[in-house]
């Protein structure tokens, strides 16, 4: 940690992509490549700024505006915000690079349509950074709602009937979920000291109701302390409200449907930004707003835990059943998101470490496998698992990366997926609850199922059945460098984290203990 910089940089960080993306819409670029350069420069600049801010973190967050007395918009990184911010700042430039090549295939020659796409894509970057930067619940909520809206044009991009239906489902689920998350926000503002995030929670245990205006026949009178069970119920609202984006079981059906979007969208948004924003929000309210003291050992821990465990197994088994490549990966995402939630719900610093580790590593692994799937779809037009036969030999780069990410997702040692699963398991054992031990069972089942649904693809690609005729695949080959470079970077990262990931885990432990 060296010198601190002014906190106005937070505003610049969030506004840069938001304002810059307006340029993508309205500047009449002469050539497509100019637009690509502009977008890439904008994204890289934002990412660099984000990292600079993280390493020279300003002392105080910055207040931007105040809605109503106690509700204000405030930006500032803390430990956990930096982790999420760092993840997306790292992945976004690569995803944009990948998208340039991919969108050529998706949009055809329609430059106007493409600039709309990249405009919203970059705008989403700013909004997601806003979620990471948010230093109180209201700010996070505001950006969370904006995230829903700016991603709509991206999902509906192809304008097919399927895409429209998927977008509608996504909107209804997300806006509705945020509506219930909002209930949590209002309760916290009434029963907490402030809405700011602070590790350990901000609930006011002593004089919670005294300050509140009291209506007839109420709880108040005798009630001098926090209505604990009510707050736990409100936590459930919050969990399932924000859980919509994190795709907890009964609320997950939007995610596979949203797979109709172009691959850069599914990869970055539906494996990293949007869904992780949901998980991030749940981590925030669990550890930073309610605090684990209130929730631990109550129904507010056990009910979500049961749902998360069920989702882990459900997601995997659906993925095994699914034959469409991207949808299979989407189901796998559902299952993996619940790993994060499972870690979060253990409600110990170790659990949080596990959750954060998986949040980071799963981001890298899943974006890699989605990009591989996208490369296959863009290069061959084949979308189903049974069409992958023999493609491994024609597209060794893509399927090599896919294999690494599959192994990592399964949790093979020496790759980063192992580290995060290991951390989750350690946290579960440490917690010692029955339900946490059930969690280890779920992790094992899920590892087995992951092996089935991921390796099936790998095996088909590299070892087609005997007498397979490779001449039908003559015309397919590995994509260009813009697609391969991100894949290579992700593979290197997965291996690097797998071997030397301990530093990262130590850092995350610091975050979970509040010392970063």
């Amino acid at each position, binding site marked *: 940690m060296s010198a601190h910089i002014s906190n106005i940089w937070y505003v610049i960080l969030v506004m840069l992509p938001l304002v810059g993306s307006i340029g993508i819409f309205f500047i009449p670029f002469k050539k497509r490549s100019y637009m690509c350069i502009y977008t890439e420069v904008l994204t890289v600049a934002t990412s660099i700024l984000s990292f600079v801010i993280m390493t020279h973190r300003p002392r105080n967050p910055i207040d931007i505006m105040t809605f109503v007395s106690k509700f204000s918009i405030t930006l500032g990184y803390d430990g956990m915000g930096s982790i999420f911010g760092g993840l997306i700042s790292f992945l976004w430039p690569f995803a944009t690079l990948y998208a340039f090549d991919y969108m050529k295939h998706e949009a055809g020659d329609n430059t106007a349509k493409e600039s709309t796409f990249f405009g919203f894509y970059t705008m989403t970057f700013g909004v997601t950074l806003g979620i990471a930067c948010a230093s109180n619940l209201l700010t996070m909520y505001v950006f969370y*709602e904006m995230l829903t809206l700016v991603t709509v044009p991206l999902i509906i991009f192809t304008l097919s009937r399927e895409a429209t239906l998927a977008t509608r489902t996504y*909107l209804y689920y997300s806006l*509705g979920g945020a509506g219930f998350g*909002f209930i949590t926000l*209002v309760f916290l503002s*009434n029963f907490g000291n402030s809405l700011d995030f602070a590790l350990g929670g901000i609930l006011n245990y002593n004089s919670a109701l005294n300050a509140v205006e009291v*209506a007839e026949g109420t709880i108040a009178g005798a009630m001098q302390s926090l209505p604990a069970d009510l707050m736990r119920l409100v936590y459930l609202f919050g969990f399932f409200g924000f859980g919509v984006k994190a795709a907890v079981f009964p609320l997950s059906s939007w995610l596979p449907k949203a797979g109709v979007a172009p691959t850069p969208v599914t990869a970055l948004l539906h494996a990293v930004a949007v869904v992780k924003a949901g998980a991030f929000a749940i981590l925030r309210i669990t550890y930073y707003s309610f605090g684990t003291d209130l929730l631990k050992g109550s129904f507010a821990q056990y009910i979500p835990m049961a749902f998360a465990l069920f989702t882990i197994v459900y997601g995997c088994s659906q993925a095994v059943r699914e034959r469409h490549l991207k949808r299979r990966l989407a189901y796998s995402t559902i299952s993996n998101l619940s790993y994060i939630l499972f870690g979060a719900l253990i409600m110990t610093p170790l659990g949080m470490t596990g959750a954060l580790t998986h949040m980071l590593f799963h981001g890298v692994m899943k974006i890699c496998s989605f990009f591989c799937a996208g490369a296959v779809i863009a290069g061959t037009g084949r979308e189903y698992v049974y069409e992958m036969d023999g493609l491994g030999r024609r597209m060794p780069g893509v399927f090599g990366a896919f294999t690494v990410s599959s192994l990592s997702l399964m949790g093979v040692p020496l790759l980063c997926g192992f580290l995060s699963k290991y951390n989750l398991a350690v946290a579960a054992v440490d917690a010692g609850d029955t339900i946490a031990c059930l969690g280890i069972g779920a992790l094992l089942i899920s590892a087995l199922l992951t092996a089935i649904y991921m390796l099936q693809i790998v095996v088909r690609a590299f070892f087609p059945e005997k007498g397979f005729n490779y001449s039908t695949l003559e015309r397919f080959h590995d994509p260009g460098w813009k697609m391969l470079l991100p894949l290579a970077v992700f593979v290197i990262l997965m291996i690097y984290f797998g071997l030397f990931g301990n530093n990262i885990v130590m850092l995350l432990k610091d975050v979970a203990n509040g010392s970063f």
Partner: protein
Amino acid sequence: MDFVRNFPAISILICMFAAIVSSGLKGRSARLLNTVLVLVVFALSLITFAWCIANGNYTVYVMGVFPAPFGNEIRFGVLESGMALFFSIIMMLSIWGGRQKMKDEVATDKEFLYYVFLNLLFSSLLALVYTNDLFTAYVFVEINTISACGIIVIRENGRTIEAGVRYMIMSLLGSGLLLLGIMMTYDITGHLLMSNIKESVEQIYTSGENLIPLVVTIALLTTGLAIKSALFPFHSWLPDAYGYSTVSSAAILSSLVSKGYIFLLIKIFYRVIGFDIIKASKLLNVLFVFGLIAMISGSMSAIRENDIRRMIAFSSIAQIGYIYMGFGMGTTAGMVASIFHILSHAATKSMLFISAIGLTDVSHGSRHFVDLTGSAHRNRIAGIGFLTGSLSMVGIPLFSGFISKLQFMDAAVSLSYRKMLPALIVLGVSTILNAIYFMKTVIRIYMPLDKLGANRAQADVATNTVPSTKRMGINGVVEENDVILFRQEKLYGFTIILFVTLNIALGVCSNTVLEWIRTGIRMFS
């Protein structure tokens, strides 16, 4: 600056005179007079509002020479003058937004009548806002009803006449109940001036005699006004009246007329009966329950609706449910939320009606969803208006609807469990329902038609079932639809921009507005 105290009375009177004068004018000059009138009232209300804020207290203005128990009074504070200011803004924008369309909707020789009705309506709204006399309020309620009926049936087709008759019957039923209520109030208290009634009511309440008549009176007054403002079980007149009348009428009816009655009801709660007695009468619980049912059932009907205007109309029922739910909470916080929602809903709903007409105009005048596909690309400014309105209705931050939602939830948190949980859950569910029908429409209007046409054409080529001429027909539709650019309808575009600004201003500067409302309520009682 003391002459400012005359302004409320002046604004009511000039509206009435303007109505009388308009009846002898040609359409064009009546229109001009109306514009000038609304602008003048806007200016007067603005000055009154500023004066009230500076003054810090309410003002009683005696009409005529007779003092209190016999004479007629106007009483105004921050809330009243603010409401008058707001009403004149919405009135102005609604009329401007529908002006272009009026040429198609109203016969030229009847145009002046429209402005007669509008001026009368405006005067009655102002009177409802300002008056301190229950019977005067009743008289203006009737004027309001008749002129509202007039602006519905002025568009002469079968649907509007049917809607007008239906509105008339329901509304007169409401007025009848209101009149009965006022008579009983007069009977048990012996007064018609609000402040005097309140004193007597307090005496009655403490003495414990005549309690049942008192409760019946409250029930009658409330039911009468609830029917007129279309609270849930009495809403059957609303969709047709809002859905088929001219666009300005729909905007005015939804955002002003129903709000005028609601404002009168608030006045009765605070100034005639006293809020504590209202609370003790348990009547608010009834309003609470019906408000909740309205929020769900209105939205459900809106989801089923296939016609954009009627969908917006059904959404009004849900929004009125919000307002009554706020009343039903029985706390000041709930009341503040409701009053803010009156403003926010008025600003949003009129914008939605005005934008919807822009969208239907570029879709062959059809109001069905299928035909509206891509209309936001053909009329950009209307699309922006509709988008803003929808986002506000769903409660997206930075728009006014978000602040109402925030206020309602905030108010709900301090209630007893019995009321808190239903209120919160229904608020959550209704957010989802709002999202369903508004977002569905937004996606529909932003779906480019050329792509859809191209898709269909491709499908036709693939199946080879449709002859090529038919395909041309599909593509032909795209060209046939008029495209409306901003420069073609400057006034319309300008109105929408003002509406959007108003909406965002309410959402962003909510702190000030809420402070005004709180001050207003303090001055009110």
